[in-house]
Structure formats: C-alpha cells, structure tokens
C-alpha cells in the first residue's frame, strides 16, 4: 500500500500543470479567470487543445488514438484539470459513445466515427431516457422498424443534455417486442440533421436550457448506423453505464471546490458572511472533507483494480452515490457561504457581454441556481435509489 508518486509520475504532473497554465485557448483561460460561463465554441476549443496535445482520449486504447495512461496518470490529470478550474470534458462523445463504438462497432464505424470524436469535431448527445422510461429504461418505446437498408425511427427521447448543440445522437431503440424487454433493444447512431428529428427545449430550475426533448418522426436511419447486433443494445449500454458511473464521482473537482471554500473562509471577500467562527457550519465543512477523503481513496482502490485488468464492477455504484452526495453537500456549503447574496438572480453577471448589475462576492449569485440545477446529479445516470438497489442485489446478494 503506497500512494507516493514516482519520478516519472511527478514529471508527468509538471507537464500537465504547465499545459493548463500555458496552453489553454486564451478565451477559455480568460473566462475561467473572470468566472464566466463557457460557451459551446469555448468547450470545443478546449477539447481540441487537449486533442492537439494527444490527451483527448484519456480512457481510450492507444490503437484508436488514446493516451494509454495508467490509473495514476488519469488521477493526476483530473487533479490538475480541477486545480486549473478547466471545463469538464463533455462525456457523450469521448467517454460514452466512443467506448461502445471501439468495443462493439465494426471496422468501418470505427474509422468513420472515432477520429471525429477524438478531435471534438462532432458533438454527440445521449438518447436513452423517454417520458415513460426513466429508471425503468428497458421500458423504452422509441421504435426502429427495418425498411430495406434503413430503419424508420419513431418516438420521443427526453432530458437530452445539450441536444441542441449536438450533431449526432446515440440512441437505444426498440427493434423487437418479443421475448424479454431488454432483448428487443438496439444501439443506433442517428444524425441530428436527418429529416424528422426535432429538438425542443426543457428549461431547468436555474432558468437555463440544458436539456431537451428530441422527437423522431419517420426518421430514416441507414442500417450501417446500427452498432453491433440487433437486440444487443442493452448489453452494450450496460458497459457504457459503468463507464459513466466511474466518471460521475467528480472527486478532483470536489476537492478543488472545498479548497477554494476554505481559502475564502479564512479571508472572506467583501459581502461574504464571516463563518469561520460558526462551529455548526464548520462542522459541516469538516464532515464533507472527511467524506470526500474517504471517497478519494475508494476511487483510488477502484482505479487500481481496473488498472490490473478488472472491469469496474458494482462497486462503481458507490462512487456514483457518494460522489454525488458530496457534490451536493458542497453546493449547500457554498449556498451558506453566500449568505443573503444567494438571493439575487443575475445570470447576466456570468456572461461575457453581461453589462447589468454585478454582485459581490462574484460567486454568490450563482450558488442557488447551481444548487437547484445540481440536484440532477442524484437523478441522472441512474438515480441514487436505483444505485442502491444495485448494491443490494449485486453486491449484497439480497
């Protein structure tokens, strides 16, 4: 048992640190420094900078352009990215659909899709959930009916994150009604520009458009966009879901947010209440830190198991549950640290062209919208209740 970094790993850390200090696109760097919102273009520019460095495919196998990083290197990278307050990597292309394509896709699909995903040239979104198929995902009804060398797709996907930015959507669709529900599901890639695809916004509690409903009306999808075999989509999706869960803990960014909070508690900016003497609040800060430290080591244990060749198993459910709980605990600490300045709703303050009211401390008016919005993390990617069902069944064999 040993968590020291080797000489090579220290050198790698310095290289990553230098990248975040010097090589981020200038407009991204500026927005981070001014605490402004990152746009679609900024996001792409950032991911393309990573790609230029050869660092876009952190989890990808080397043969498809991945980094081949060890678990420790990934850990180092995530920490440095969080310290630099870099944008998170949008997962739908790089960490969700890509593993399905390089694991289950055919050669032609790999060549067609992977390079553009790696280079962030194409924006992907995830089309799983439906109005009546959320936790019970296998109950999905979006139908793909074979018609010659096309599928005709009809149905509605919902909660589609950043679907209004997306060029492509990967979908779970129903190709058969016989047998078990899971066995009639297929994994289909659909061009969002196809005739019959429409995207309508869903506004979330922070007043923003982040999710969408995506409708398919007689959309013709070439058969070559089917990944793997018809009826095997559920199995592929499960593999993908475990990938999703290991990335959902957000340990590095939680560490960073707590660290910044601690700094502000020691030297409160004007407008922030003085909380360092409030032992009730400080007890919550400490408990959050302790929970996060335990989670960090749990994640390291999972990562080290993965690096010795074991697939992330049901224990990755712990990461999802605990990781999201800690994120929400931190959200609440920030809300408290904003005092009454949690109340003003001034979203323009975080836009580049915003010329309205500026509230100090700058972070405060964003804490409530963020807290509201971030209730999502215990809901999406399989709700925390569903995750506990998995632990009870698969781990505890109840």
């Amino acid at each position: 048992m040993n968590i020291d970094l080797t000489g090579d790993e220290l050198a790698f850390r310095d290289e990553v640190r230098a990248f975040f200090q010097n090589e981020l696109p200038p407009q991204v760097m500026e927005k981070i420094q001014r605490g402004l919102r990152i746009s679609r273009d900024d996001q792409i520019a950032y991911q393309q900078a990573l790609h230029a460095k050869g660092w876009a495919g952190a989890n990808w196998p080397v043969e498809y352009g991945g980094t081949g990083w060890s678990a420790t290197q990934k850990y180092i990278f995530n920490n440095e990215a969080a310290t630099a307050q870099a944008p998170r990597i949008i997962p739908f292309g790089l960490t969700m659909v890509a593993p399905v394509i390089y694991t289950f896709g055919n050669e032609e699909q790999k060549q067609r899709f992977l390079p553009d995903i790696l280079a962030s040239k194409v924006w992907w979104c995830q089309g799983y959930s439906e109005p009546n198929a959320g936790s019970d995902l296998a109950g999905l009804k979006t139908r793909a009916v074979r018609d010659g060398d096309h599928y005709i797709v009809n149905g509605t996907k919902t909660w589609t994150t950043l679907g209004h930015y997306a060029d492509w959507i990967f979908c779970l669709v129903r190709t058969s009604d016989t047998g078990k529900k899971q066995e009639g599901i297929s994994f289909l890639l659909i061009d969002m520009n196809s005739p019959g695809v429409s995207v309508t916004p869903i506004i979330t509690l922070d007043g923003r458009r982040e999710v969408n409903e995506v409708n398919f009306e007689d959309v013709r999808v070439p058969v070559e966009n089917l990944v793997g075999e018809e009826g095997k989509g559920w199995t592929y999706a499960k593999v993908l879901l475990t990938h999703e869960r290991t990335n959902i803990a957000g340990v590095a960014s939680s560490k960073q947010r707590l660290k910044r909070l601690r700094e502000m508690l020691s030297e409160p900016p004007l407008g922030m209440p003085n909380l360092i003497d409030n032992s009730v609040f400080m007890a919550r800060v400490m408990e959050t830190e302790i929970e996060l430290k335990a989670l960090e080591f749990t994640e390291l244990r999972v990562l080290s198991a993965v690096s010795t060749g074991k697939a992330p198993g049901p224990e990755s459910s712990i990461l999802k549950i605990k990781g999201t709980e800690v994120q929400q605990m931190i959200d609440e600490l920030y809300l408290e640290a904003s005092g009454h300045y949690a109340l003003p709703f001034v979203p323009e303050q975080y836009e580049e062209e915003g010329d309205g009211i500026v509230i100090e401390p700058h972070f405060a008016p964003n804490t409530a919208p963020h807290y509201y919005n971030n209730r999502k993390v215990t809901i999406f990617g399989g709700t925390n209740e569903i995750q506990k069902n998995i632990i009870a069944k698969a781990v505890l064999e109840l």
Partner: protein
Amino acid sequence: MDFALNDIQQMLQDSAAKFIQNDYDFETRRRLTESELGYSEENWKLFAELGWLALPFDEAYGGLGGSLTDLIVLQTELGRGLVVEPYFSTVVLGGNLIQRHGSESQQSELLERLIAGELKLAFAQAEPQCHSSITDIETSAERSEEGYHITGHKAVVLGAPSADLLVVAARTSGNRGDQNGLSLFLVDPAQPGVTMQAYPTNDGFRGAEIRFDSVKATLLGEVDSAYDAIQATLNDAIVALSAEAVGVMEKLLNATVEFCKVRKQFGQPIGKFQVLQHRMADMFMECEQTRSMLYFGAITVAGGGEEASHAASMLKVKVGSAGRLVGQQAVQLHGGMGVSDELDVGHFFKRITMINTLLGSRDEHLQRLIRNAQAA
C-alpha cells in the same frame, strides 16, 4: 388547551384558500413573476379589501388588532400559493416597525395608508458586511439643521423596487455592534442620492441593492433607541416566514405523494416502492414537527421577553432542517421532472431553500443557541 382555529382564523384561512384557488394558480403566478412589476396591483387592492393589510395593526388606526397566531394562519396559505405580492416586506416588516416604533402621528398617518393599500414598504436593514446581525450597521445618519441625512449601502432589500417608502436602519451614535445608537428612518426612494439596483430573486420575488449618498430622511419615532423594536419585529417576522414555510412544505409533500401515486415505472406506481414510502413518511413527520414548532414559536414570541428570541431561533432551525429534507426529497422523488421549471414542485423547492437564507439560516441560529447555552 386548544389548537383549533377560532372564527376569525377560520375565515382568514377560507378567504386565503379561496383566493389562491380562484385567482392564483401556478401559471398565473408565473406570469406575475415574469411581469415588469413582479406582482399584481389588483391583488394588492384585493388584499386591502379582504382586510389582510389591516390584520396585525391596532384598531385605533383601522387595523383588525390580530394576533401573531392570526397572522400565521394567513401566512401559511400565502405559502401554499407561493404568493409574491410584497406582503411580508410591507405588513410584517415595515408596518410592524412603524406600529412598534413610530410616533403617534406617524402611526396614524402611515398605517392608515398602508391598510388602504396605498403605501408599500420595504425594510432596509442588512448590509454587505452584515447578513443577519441587527447591530452590525455601518450606514449612518448625520444630523444638521435641515434634519437627518443618510449614507450607506443596504443589501438585498426585499420588496424595495415596489416600495413607496423605505424604513432604513442607521446608526446615529455608538459603534458597529452597539445596541444603543440605532435609529429607524423613513426614506422616499425617489429622492436624489438614492441609487437602486433592482433585480429578481431566484425564488420569484424582487429585491435591490440600495446606496444612499447623503439622502434626506425622516426619523421614525425616537432617536438612538430602535434596537428593541427591530428585534421584536424580526422575531415576529421569523414566525411569519416559518408559517409560510409550513405552507410550502405541505405543498411539497402533497405534490410528491400525488406524483408517486400516478408515476409508473417497472409496471407499478413508484409509490409502491418501500424506500420511497419511507422517504415520504419522513417528509410527513417533518412537516408535522415543523407545524408544532410553529405553534410553539408563535405563542412564545407573542409573549415577548428573553424567551421570544430563543423560541424564534429554535423555530428557524427547525424550518431550516425540515425544509431542506422535504424540499430535496420532493425533487428527488420527482426524478427529472423535479428539476424542470415546468412543474410547480421545483418552485416550491426554490422558495423553501431561500427561506433558509432569510432572517438568519439554520446554522446561524443554531450557533446562537449554542452561544447562549455556553454563556448561561
């Protein structure tokens, strides 16, 4: 001992429930929050007609002479409707301050106008460096031959954009932290020297940052001695706000129970899953415990004295903890629908969250209780 509503309270509850049912459905409320003014003047007139604006004021000024327990009946219903009209800032804060601290002539003139629906108020108390302390006031009032002039920055003044008159807490003597030397002033916000930056709040109300640069102000009541009136008014305000919170929480519980009866996953209503049943049982218990605490708080605060502040803090702690659980679980049990702007549940969640940040948070009041226990 009797917790039943008396006739007046029953009438208040019925009229408020009817108003919300008929005139204040969720979509109407949404339109109001998105309008320029942020609420409805017509509703305000109706509040005057219904006697709500007269509720806590002395009969001598045309008030109804209602008690704090009468007020909580109304406030709970206003909570159920997520009512955004500036009742809290005008009646519960501003009006009560005038009634407690104004001179005889100020009381009769201002309260009469208030009761008639012709005067809206806002209480400018907190400052950027001061979140819920009464005495940490830097805004100062200088006296000269022409009267008083105020200079300072007041933070997050709720109801300010619609107020005809501001009630401003300022220091006339002493230092930051002193109880003596605090005075209340009446300030016309339309005067030169007042800069108001108005904004919506993230739970659908309106507030403002206000800067006073040597602004002419009228002293309310006696100089230097406003501490007790402010303290007593804020204790009342905690009770009133907690009553609103109870209304909000009961709506969150009901909405969640109804949703779980109809939302189906895995071929059954999700309300059949025992883990969710227990969660809703917890929410139910927290609502009831908070209502009990509200009654304790209303009775004790009305009795005044040392106990009043202690009870107000206890109540605010309970509202903070219970509101957090009920709000968060309501959203969680709604799944994705819980974080969408479309359903009312998210808006009740926002309100209950912001109620914790008003008038001192749970952590803050808990800390006060600990300090008092240590000092005892």
